[in-house]
């Protein structure tokens, strides 16, 4: 139950909006953080908190791409396939991931570690090809970088290669 575990947080969220229903996305994020995906129980509970019917929560969940209705791998690799990244090799990136992990978009490795999805533009077109793994961006990736990232993740659960605040391009030395 979210209500017990995140009591304070939920109250803070509700306090930000004059209308309860506005809290549906924040609460869904809580639910997904909790279980790794949005379960029916969670949707029912959120409906209860916001005085909505479960279908009203369900229809929202299915409209947005970031909510999972089924569990996904520990590391959810989301590769941008929009034109700008494609121009600089996102298809090659996908093929490379396949050779390394043996899975393609929509698939999960047997060890449940990795799931690959393709997504649309993530606003790092200047630093493509790129992928988002869980919350982190990895930009300007190359074959070798991919290998290091995957190794890091398996080993430490995170990787130093993830992007920090927007850097590129380096200021021009004029």
């Amino acid at each position, binding site marked *: 139950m979210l209500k017990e575990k995140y009591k304070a947080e939920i109250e803070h969220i509700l306090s930000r909006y004059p209308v309860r229903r506005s809290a549906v996305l924040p609460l869904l994020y809580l639910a997904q953080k909790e279980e790794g995906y949005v379960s029916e129980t969670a949707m029912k509970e959120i409906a209860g908190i916001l005085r909505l019917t479960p279908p009203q929560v369900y229809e929202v969940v299915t409209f947005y791409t*970031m909510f999972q209705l089924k569990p996904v791998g520990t590391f959810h690799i989301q590769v941008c396939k929009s*034109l700008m990244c494609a*121009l*600089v090799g996102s298809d090659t990136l996908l093929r490379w991931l396949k050779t390394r992990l043996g899975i393609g978009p929509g698939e999960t490795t047997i060890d449940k570690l990795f799931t690959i999805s393709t997504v649309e533009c993530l606003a790092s077109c*200047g630093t493509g090809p790129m992928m988002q793994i869980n919350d982190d961006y990895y930009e300007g990736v190359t074959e070798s970088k991919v290998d290091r990232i995957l190794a890091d993740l398996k080993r430490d659960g995170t990787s130093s290669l993830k992007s920090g605040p927007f850097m590129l391009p380096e200021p021009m030395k004029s």
Partner: protein
Amino acid sequence: MPPFEKILLKNMETPGYTGSLADYEHAGGYQAWRKVLGKVSPAEITETVKKSGLRGRGGAGFPTGVKWGFLPKDYQGSKYLCCNADESEPGTFKDRQLIERDPHQMIEGILIACYAIGVETAYIYIRGEFVLGAQILERALAEARTAGYVGQNILGAGTSINIWVHRGAGAYICGEETALLESLEGKRGLPRVKPPFPATHGLYNKPTVVNNVETLANLPHIMNRGAEWFAAIGSPPKSSGTRIFCVSGHVKRPGNFEVPMGTTLRELIFEHAGGMRSDKPLKAIIPGGASAPFFTPEHLDVKLDFESVAQAGSMLGSGGVTVMEEGTSMVWAALRLMEFFYHESCGKCTPCREGSSWLVQTMRRIVDGRGRKSDLETLVELCQNIAGRTVCAFGDAEVAPIMSTLKYWRHEYEELIQQAAATAPVELMMPAMGKH
């Protein structure tokens, strides 16, 4: 002409600048807020913004001051400001930099806007994927609250303004202002029928202004240095100020470049972005994000301001400039964008919903070498039947890639259709990853 001085990226391009409150204040941050709060009347601020000629940077380019003016006068009850940080237009990544590198600049802009239009609650609607951006904003807001710039009775001036970060969850359409409002109300992000406009019936049916991050980020500077100063920058009167152009694709030095409006594509691409990445010559340019019709090398001397780009048959849009080199299949490129639009169509309007799936399927057939002569005919007619017949501008946007590529590179379509052998898209185009 004096050497051009950047406005929005200036701070963050100074080595060592972290975007912290301290850094921002050290660079003169929140002076504008202190200057206007309680001292300059909201009406005056709106006037100044009108005079400055500032136009929306989100895509539509609507004069900001005028938009504010649409709010009902002396309206009792709550009004809202929404900062549109949904930046999802393919090829656009300027807001992300403004958010992650200099959050206080946009927060100060939001404060000034709220004060000018008498708003006590503002929401920053940031696209869900910007997890880092959201964290940075939350941190900055926390700093601003402790410093007393945000919250109750700000700087003792009696004004109260609360700013909340609201994360989207993966839907391009939520960048459309009314879809944004629906989403913020906890519903599916479907655009609303207009009129009524947000200015009168917006968030929770209350008067609401939606402004883009970059638009708002300009406000502190306008307040500090005056409308005349801003109005003189770029190519007045219609296109004052700078734009941050996001250059992507086959250039040496992709990235964000802030230049005065009116700068030519040639200068942007060949000087700022360092020119083409290889010896392959330039083939095509998208000047204003995925929704903008393609340009050819003939357009290199088009000035990057609202009018010139429009006259040349495209739009300045969101400032996303994508450069493609010789050898890039235009049909393939158009399909990629069409797949984006198909994926992102909210499904409300019949022409957009059914049209996008129809177009995508037809384009795939052509790219897969299963095209028919009659297809080109159909493509054009379908596009014409979508544009201008939908609730939001998405309908007009989604047809741009096909229409413009068909206009300048029709032969590429015809060649594909003639090719008997089926050639899968991957074979058709398989760009390699860079060697960063």
